[in-house]
């Protein structure tokens, strides 16, 4: 089965969201040839949906901010199982990366003296998020896209990678198919950067686009790379819950940053009822102080609605389970109430949260300037991913790099809002830089044509089974239901063991999936090929979650509801063994240098 084309690049980047584009810019600037593969059209990646902003200690709004405070906030939010070196690099370099975007043409909201405006967000001590209303992700991706197209990068749109090829243990290229014609293409590369985003499509209720099928995670895993922290999944506390067809679509944390409050069916601000001890010193003692914080009063502390996402999601879950939820199974998020405080409330809400206004108006017939929204947790982000070197972003496979959501380390057990967009540009840049350097030091890679042939043949098997095979959409829906019900916000050993049994059956069904028709733009075929990745990441999530017998950040075990000090000393890693089974191991966290440990201690006050 011959491939239609063979392309050859120094650096090949898989994924064109924020991390992939930033990597492409950096690699291209260093003078190597760069190919960029994206599953959708350019500029449509999931980054476009990010709303609130990107965290960087620019200190434009509050001059008490610095990289040290940002670093400490990130470690605290991640419950100290983060890769401290990544958290440090991220906090130090984010301001420069954000300023660079302005040089590329980004147009952030401004302070009165004309600098980049920053807003409050959960878990960040000071207003830190550079933003553009509530469409910051669109601004980021468009800025990077419009910059990239003038750098000589070759973009392969609507191509999906099905296999990573190695040459004597080093990354050497990929096999991909194009959606339009369904033809296979070989890409040889001296270095490969994976920037494929997340795994949200493994769950029923998710804020992720269809692309979030864990491709990079699964490609790297199958090639032998190590994944870590896969048990840590972020359930964003505020997704839409009604109407049913939009369930899971994100409602930005910016709503709470601008003064929005969470209430149960009794009208109680339940977030004041449960404030974790380590956040007590930084949390408002009453609603008035919380309001003043959102309006920029530097003496005030933040309202409990802006506690970390894992905590807020669990509080909402608790209210709903206790029968104090909203009519459609969520709780109320109210921004309309600020009319009591500001005469210009309606115009203010529309200006600060334009896409939220638009989204509720169009999809739920609801005017957020007048009525409260109904919200509930939605699968949003995976902290876990490909294990990488902090400085270079190289994985455990030489020549294979990863950046953005598909890489792990910076976020630990829970990611702070706003740290994702800055992660993309900080580590996207580093991945591009080091991938280019690795490519320069290396002779042309040899493509393993037999492995490519095997991958191509296996990929067309669903056509042999035809319409009589398993319906891939049904398998995907059952997988999503399994993960939602059994490996969701609240987990137990018994349920996760059951999930593993389900996954075995689903794997068997997926191997029988069939599709009729031609290879041209055949969505059913694409779904067949996505299943393998979804199953691999689901298994890694479940096995890692079984191994962590404690609760921490995005991972909550009903059977082990407390945090255990012992579990704060390692990450959980999964790796594919030669016999195809999944190995789960504990990888000790390296000790933090004294200088960083001191920063963490100082910021605990």
């Amino acid at each position, binding site marked *: 089965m011959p491939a239609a084309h063979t392309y050859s690049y120094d650096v090949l980047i898989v994924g064109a969201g924020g991390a992939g584009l930033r990597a492409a810019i950096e690699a291209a600037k260093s003078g190597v040839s760069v190919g960029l593969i994206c599953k*959708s*059209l*350019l500029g*449509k*990646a999931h980054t*476009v*949906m990010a709303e609130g902003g990107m965290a960087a200690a620019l200190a434009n709004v509050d001059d008490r901010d610095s990289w040290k405070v940002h670093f400490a906030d990130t470690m605290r939010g991640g419950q100290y199982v983060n890769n401290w070196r990544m958290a440090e690099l991220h906090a130090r370099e984010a301001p420069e990366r954000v*300023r660079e975007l*302005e*040089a590329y*043409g980004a*147009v952030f*909201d*401004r302070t009165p003296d*004309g*600098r*980049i405006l920053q807003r409050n967000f959960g878990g960040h001590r000071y207003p830190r998020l550079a933003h*553009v*209303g509530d*469409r910051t*992700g*669109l601004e980021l991706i*468009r800025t990077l896209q*419009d*910059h990239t*197209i*003038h750098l000589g990068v070759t973009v392969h*749109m609507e191509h999906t990678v099905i296999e990573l090829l190695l040459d004597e243990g080093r990354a050497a290229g990929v096999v991909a198919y194009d959606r*339009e*014609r369904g033809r296979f293409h070989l890409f040889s590369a001296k270095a490969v950067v994976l920037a494929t985003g997340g795994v949200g499509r493994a769950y029923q209720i998710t804020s992720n*686009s*269809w*692309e979030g099928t864990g491709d990079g995670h699964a490609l790297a895993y199958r090639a032998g790379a190590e994944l870590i922290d896969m048990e840590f999944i972020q359930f964003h506390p505020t997704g839409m819950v*009604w*109407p*049913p*067809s*939009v369930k899971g*679509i994100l409602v930005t944390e910016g709503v709470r940053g601008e003064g929005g409050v969470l209430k149960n069916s009794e009208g109680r601000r339940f977030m004041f009822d449960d404030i974790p001890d380590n956040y007590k010193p930084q949390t408002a003692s009453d609603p008035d102080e919380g309001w003043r914080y959102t309006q920029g009063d530097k003496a005030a502390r933040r309202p409990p609605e802006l506690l970390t996402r894992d905590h807020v999601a669990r509080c909402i879950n608790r209210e709903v389970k206790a029968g104090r939820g909203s009519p459609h199974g969520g709780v109320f998020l109210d921004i309309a109430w600020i009319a009591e405080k500001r005469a210009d409330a309606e115009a203010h809400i529309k200006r600060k949260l*334009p*896409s939220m206004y638009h989204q509720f108006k*169009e*999809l739920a017939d609801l005017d957020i300037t007048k009525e409260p929204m109904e919200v509930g947790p939605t699968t949003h982000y995976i902290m876990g991913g490909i294990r990488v070197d902090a400085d270079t972003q190289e994985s455990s496979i030489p020549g294979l790099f990863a950046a953005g959501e598909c890489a792990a380390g910076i976020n630990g057990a829970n990611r702070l809002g706003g740290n994702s967009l800055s992660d993309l540009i900080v580590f996207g840049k580093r991945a591009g830089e080091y991938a280019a350097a690795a490519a320069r030091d290396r002779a042309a890679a040899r493509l393993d044509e037999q492995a490519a042939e095997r991958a191509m043949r296996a990929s067309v098997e669903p056509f042999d089974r035809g*319409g009589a095979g398993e*319906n*891939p*959409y*049904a398998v995907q*829906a059952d997988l999503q239901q399994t993960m939602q019900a059994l490996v969701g916000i609240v987990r137990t050993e018994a349920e996760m063991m059951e999930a593993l049994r389900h996954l075995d059956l689903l794997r068997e069904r997926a191997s029988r999936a069939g*599709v*009729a*028709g*031609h290879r*041209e*733009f*055949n*969505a*059913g*075929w694409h*779904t067949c090929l996505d299943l393998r990745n979804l199953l691999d990441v689901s298994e890694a999530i479940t096995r890692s979650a079984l191994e962590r017998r404690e609760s921490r950040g995005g991972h909550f075990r009903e059977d082990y509801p407390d945090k255990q000090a012992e579990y704060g000393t390692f990450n959980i890693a999964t790796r594919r063994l030669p016999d195809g089974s999944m190995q789960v191991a504990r990888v000790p966290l390296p000790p933090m240098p004294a200088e960083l440990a001191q920063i963490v201690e100082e910021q605990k006050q």
Partner: protein
Amino acid sequence: MPQATFRIWRNNPGEAGGFEDFRTEVSEGMVVLDAVHKIQAEQAPDLACRWNCKAGKCGSCSAEINGRPRLMCMSRLNTLDLTEPVTVEPMRAFPLIKDLVTDVSWNFGVKKGVQRFRPRPADAPDGTWRMAQRDIDRVQEFRKCIECFLCQDVCHVLRDHDKHDEFIGPRFFVYSAALEMHPLDTADRLGDLKNTQGVGYCNITKCCTKVCPEHIHITDNAIIPLKERVIDRFYDPVTRLLRLITG
């Protein structure tokens, strides 16, 4: 559960196609994209359509619904008459690939031809700039564009007159206007707009503005000001006279 009929365009690549009716269950709050997904999952697994975010933010699921260019994800069924079949067809101004998917690559090529952003030197020693919010409000309106290309689809200069080689279309006038009105930008795009990008072809019928899902005032705020700048530069009699005198 109530049912509705969706009359969806089907074709194999390179072949003539036609409408095919699908009857499916509909429920409260559904949008057209939900119905298309349901049909894909239950009746036509190989039905081709583009989509990503399903929240009106990515601009992938552009189509013509009952003849009007719209995003499928933002078209609620309760705004449509479900006693009649709902027609869903691909954007007609672009070459058809399969079913609801068209070849929009022309747009990506056009963008490359617009001169890139070139900022003035930094305002402050730390390499940063100062811009007032009121000076960027207009630019931010243009930067809301999600590149769904519905404005390109509806524009008669492209759709009916096929001026793809001489006219960049509303999307790229908005893009050019965002750059021209960017307080930091120093490049000059007026010559290109007049000579090769066809801003003069637009006769202000405002069809693009009407279909914009982001409610950008494409004609009033982007195209007309660009036309005015071109006229001031190239056609204003006083300026022309001065140019003649001063050379």
